[in-house]
């Protein structure tokens, strides 16, 4: 196995980190509940920047309230602020659910948010959930995982009568991807809950009236009766494993899968749906798969042994690496910011299986990526918008993928998951490569038609 060290051990600082902080994921998860207002228990600057990141990705207003902790709160504790904030939030914004997450500050001063929440006056039929999400520990996926686990532990009623219903934990995916995985699930299960579900929230205009909420999101009633679900599938271990294991309290055993990006990962998803629903795979899915494989076979020569460097969240990086390796590309460098140990193991297993002499790094930064790319040029860079500077500096085309994509609109509307997502991803890869290949060609030398 190749090793790589951009002065790793002697370098104690991160240069242009690859991930944002956990509260962003916590906010994302919270927004997937219908009429939910995320609340940041921290100083004002915190949620401001986190909202901006989501705003830029979805090009819309994101509403998050803040405890507005001041210096006095840092010294005397943030309880008073939190109480006032919660009261105000319910009065002014009237959410059905208030989802509180903590920040670096509130975690360091050690505010016992759970204890504080227990003694708050919650208006009837409203709920509060709270999650511990210190900004210095983890990635957005970590924060998402904590909030999802909190929702599952704190809202559902115990002892629900079971019905044949699937609980789908899609992880931190774009609304269109949630749509795809829900669509597949819907072909196997008549009853389905997607938790959390940002469709109709993040891909929907924010209502002008601050007391109104977008129509989407998992309804509170469905979350309360979560225990009625007979089966569960969780996508993306970093985002959903904690929530999945919390389902044990509701007597639900969840299958933990990778996010279904690529043929193999989608196959595994379909297989799991098939087994759990005891239904046959419908012809429509078979047709989709056939088309995807056909197209793949056709395009394969053009992509064969094209090298890729991937820098995105762990849950997406794993299936993406698997897919690219599977279609004959060479994902020679895979890096992410904070990730759990399983991430490294998963990528190494893929390298081994496809005999790829690749490098995988976690706790990496863009400086690592740059050092690698200077040594080993690749044909395509796959990750978020912040890679564009490296892309330009080093003359490598960038395929915008994952979170956040903040310099091109509507990226979140196109799914990369599922068999149709494969085709879209393939198209994007090839178009990116082709655009790049043509960019310096003189007008008179351009070919009108290209064959792939």
């Amino acid at each position, binding site marked *: 196995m190749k090793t790589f060290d951009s002065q790793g051990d002697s370098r104690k600082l991160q240069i242009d980190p690859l991930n944002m902080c956990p509260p962003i994921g916590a906010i994302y998860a919270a927004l997937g509940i219908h009429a939910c207002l995320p609340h940041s228990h921290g100083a004002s600057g915190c949620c401001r920047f986190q909202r901006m990141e989501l705003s830029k990705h979805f090009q819309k207003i994101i509403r998050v309230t803040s405890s507005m902790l001041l210096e006095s709160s840092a010294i005397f504790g943030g309880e008073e602020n939190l109480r006032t904030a919660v009261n105000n939030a319910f009065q002014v914004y009237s959410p059905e659910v208030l989802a509180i997450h903590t920040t670096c500050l509130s975690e*360091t001063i050690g505010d016992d948010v759970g204890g504080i929440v227990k003694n708050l006056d919650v208006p009837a039929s409203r709920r509060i959930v709270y999650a511990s999400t210190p900004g210095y520990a983890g990635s957005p996926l970590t924060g998402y995982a904590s909030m999802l686990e909190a929702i599952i532990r704190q809202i559902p009623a115990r002892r629900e009568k079971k019905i044949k219903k699937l609980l789908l934990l899609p992880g931190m995916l774009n609304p269109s991807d949630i749509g795809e995985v829900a669509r597949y699930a819907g072909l196997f299960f008549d009853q389905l809950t997607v938790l959390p579900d940002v469709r109709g929230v993040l891909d929907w205009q924010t209502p002008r009236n601050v007391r109104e909420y977008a129509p989407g999101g998992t309804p509170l009633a469905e979350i309360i009766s979560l225990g009625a679900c007979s089966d569960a599938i969780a996508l993306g271990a970093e985002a959903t494993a904690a929530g999945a294991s919390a389902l044990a309290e509701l007597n639900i055993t969840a299958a933990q899968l990778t996010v279904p990006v690529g043929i193999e990962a989608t196959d595994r998803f379909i297989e799991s749906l098939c087994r759990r629903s005891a239904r046959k795979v419908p012809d429509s899915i078979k047709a989709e798969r056939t088309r995807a494989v056909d197209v793949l076979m056709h395009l394969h020569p053009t992509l064969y042994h094209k090298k890729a460097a991937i820098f995105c969240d762990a849950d997406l990086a794993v299936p993406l690496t698997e897919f690219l390796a599977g279609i004959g590309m060479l994902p020679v460098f895979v890096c992410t910011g904070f990730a759990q140990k399983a991430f490294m193991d998963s990528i190494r297993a893929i390298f081994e299986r496809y005999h790829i002499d690749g490098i995988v790094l976690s706790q990496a930064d863009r400086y690592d990526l740059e050092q690698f790319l200077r040594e080993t040029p690749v044909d395509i860079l796959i990750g978020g918008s912040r890679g564009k500077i490296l892309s330009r500096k080093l003359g490598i085309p960038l395929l915008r993928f994952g979170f956040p994509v903040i310099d091109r609109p509507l990226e979140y509307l196109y799914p990369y998951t599922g068999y149709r997502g494969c085709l879209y991803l393939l198209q994007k890869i090839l178009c990116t490569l082709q655009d790049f290949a043509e960019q310096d060609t003189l007008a008179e030398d351009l070919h009108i038609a290209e064959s792939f």
Partner: protein
Amino acid sequence: MRQIAIYGKGGIGKSTTVQNLAAALAENGRKLMVIGCDPKSDCTRLLQGGCARKTVLEEMRSNPQGVKLEDILHEGCFGIRCVESGGPEPGVGCAGRGIITAINLLEELGAYDKSLDYVFYDVLGDVVCGGFAMPIREGKAHEIYIVASGELMSLYAANNIAKGIARFANTGDVRVGGIICNSRLVDGEQKLVDTFAQELGTHTISSIPRDNIVQHAEIHRQTVITYAPDSVQAEIYRSLGTALENNTTFTIPTPLTQERLEELFMDSIQFNNKY
């Protein structure tokens, strides 16, 4: 599994008391874990025969993703499981956050084995921030014992700590199980501490007389239970163990006012009529 937190003024004898108490209980067949919640990481020295190898936080620092339970959970005398949270050196960082992080990790690693009879949290003397209240948050310690002597400052500190505890007790399940009087040979000490305990809404669960054998044992890095098992002091720690096991007095503390506290002391010396 009973989870018990021990608080009290710095230097009053919490760690000494906890370790001797733990040894007494374990000698009697109980399965215990002692979690040191003090950046000085000196809470299990007598149980392990010396200041421990790596603390939880040190281990996390050098090996962020790969800490295993066996790296931080060490077996001391009588099979007592010992953990030291550790923390920053004086004047830097945030020890309170360290406690939160360490205890979270212990939970994640499955240190809270259901087969344990007792988990003791030995907490740093000055409970100066939220982190030091981590052991008494929801789902952790349900019982608190405050170690105090008859000295004014010691009871003042105990009273102060009780204010913080009252807040957690009012919103959760944690209760005060009693005051452990660690004697400093103060005039009228017993009565003073008893009265204080009573007004605080609890009782003196046990009184430990001052005995140099405890210091000797400490220098030899042992509890009195192993150093001098047949001594009177060892027997006293065993009685403390019994008292703890059979304790049924669990209350929400009612902290005294400053005036009342000083009055108690004034009454005490006047009663003793020394000066």
